[in-house]
């Protein structure tokens, strides 16, 4: 039976972390499972956690009244869900839902935020990883905006 620390270490997010930081993270981690269709968080709620997806599929969604929930992005194994825990006002800007049965590691963002305030090395490691994820997402979003598949005259 694997320990939580081993599982965490296997996730791309934790790659390159020192043993000390890995242990710190494990202290704020827990295993979670979502059923297909289960809501993970909702826009406006306090963002106190983020998730490292181990298996399954999740979607990031935005609710528009006449359209219902619009799926903006899907995430799967190896991906990270959620950065609002690190950015004020620490509230989710979107909804998230598990599309398939999903297993993930939930990290206590609130706890990590506080630890990062005191340990700037840890803070930098977290920020580096989050910045990388944000950059990837932004780039992808810009490409989506370009609407490359549309016929342009």
């Amino acid at each position, binding site marked *: *039976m*694997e*320990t*939580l620390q081993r*599982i965490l270490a296997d996730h791309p997010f934790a790659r390159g972390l020192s043993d000390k930081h890995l242990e710190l993270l494990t202290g704020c981690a*827990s*295993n*979670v*499972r*979502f059923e297909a269709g*289960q*809501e*993970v*968080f909702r826009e406006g709620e306090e963002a106190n956690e983020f998730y490292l997806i181990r298996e399954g599929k999740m979607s990031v969604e935005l609710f528009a*009244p*006449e*359209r*219902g929930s619009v799926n903006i992005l899907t995430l799967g194994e190896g991906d990270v869900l959620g950065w609002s825990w690190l950015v004020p006002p620490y509230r989710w800007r979107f909804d998230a839902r598990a599309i398939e049965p999903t297993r993930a590691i*939930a990290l206590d963002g609130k706890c990590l935020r506080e630890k990062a305030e005191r340990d700037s090395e840890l803070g930098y490691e977290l920020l580096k990883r989050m910045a990388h994820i944000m950059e990837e997402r932004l780039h992808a979003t810009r490409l989506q905006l370009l609407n490359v598949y549309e016929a342009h005259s």
Partner: protein
Amino acid sequence: MSDDPCNFVLERDNFQQLLDVLAKHGYRVVGPTVRDGAIVYDTLSSAADLPAGWTDEQNGGTYRLRRRDDQALFGYAVGPHSWKKFLHPPVVRLWQATRDGNRLDIREDPHESPKMAFLGVRSCELHAIAIQDRVFIQGQHVESRYKSRREQAFIVAVNCGQAGGTCFCVSMNTGPKATSGFDLALTEVLEDGRHYFLVEVGTESGADVLRELSHRSAAKAEEEAAERVHASTVQQMGRKMDTVDIKDLLYRNYEHPRWDNVASRCLTCANCTMVCPTCFCTTVEDVTDLKGEHAERWQKWDSCFTMDFSYIHGGSIRATPKSRYRQWMTHKLATWIDQFGTSGCVGCGRCITWCPVGIDITEEVDAIRKSESETSAAKENHGNTTENPG
């Protein structure tokens, strides 16, 4: 009114006179009659049209007529019809338009206001009429068609001698005894071989009509007999609803999981809105003839349960059955209070009886109330289920 005694007695044998006098005064008498296995409201040509000796058995999704072992004229509760059928008709033409080149001519349809006498209005129904009065007459705009029909209506109330299986007027403070809003109120008494009606006068018009009937002052024993009828009906309520803090209860629980539960049962068939005596929603339909010269606008009953009801460009706001059931129930019991100052529900039980799957509004309120504390505890553990790693 003068110092006449309040109560009178009309013998069963003289009951036909009431219909005759009303007809003489130009009223079309409408009241309960048996048709298609139910007691509905329709034009009565004589007292023989009344459901003498009939009663109803009602429960969630169930309505059956049964024979009584007496000949009571009003020995049943309420059926699928309510008086809104006459005051707020299901289909009304509002206006007609003609087009001639560029010219557009729109003519409003005259308000046809037949004089109607409602015979057999129950206390819950009097309250329902008063509730619709607030919607149509006492707001910023006045629905003049409703107003003229309403002003012309003569109301003969009947105090229920028997509560229905889904009745909860006691919980809603709307009965079973009629206290106001009638021209005459009758209590039917069958006791010791006698069959008579205790008559209470509510208005001058009521007094005028009574004057033309064979009647006499009520004796104390007769008044007491009527009171026994009222008291026994109170004990027979088939349902009850705890209305304490109900507006805030529902306002707090828009996200309660019970809505998902009821949505799994609700067919959004809209029966409840059609039988509910206070539901007032309508839609309009614009029709035109083939030549394109003549158009009409018709107003028809509508229901918040339809997909179209909340449609704006792009889609419906209330796309899921859950949101539509929630809308109906929250409107009826909560937002109605903020809109019109009273509950929208009169405890008649029709929505329970006529729901094909027997959804019970009293049960739904109860479920939310009881599990409210359970839900807030569950929210704290939202999303996280721990398991063995591996």
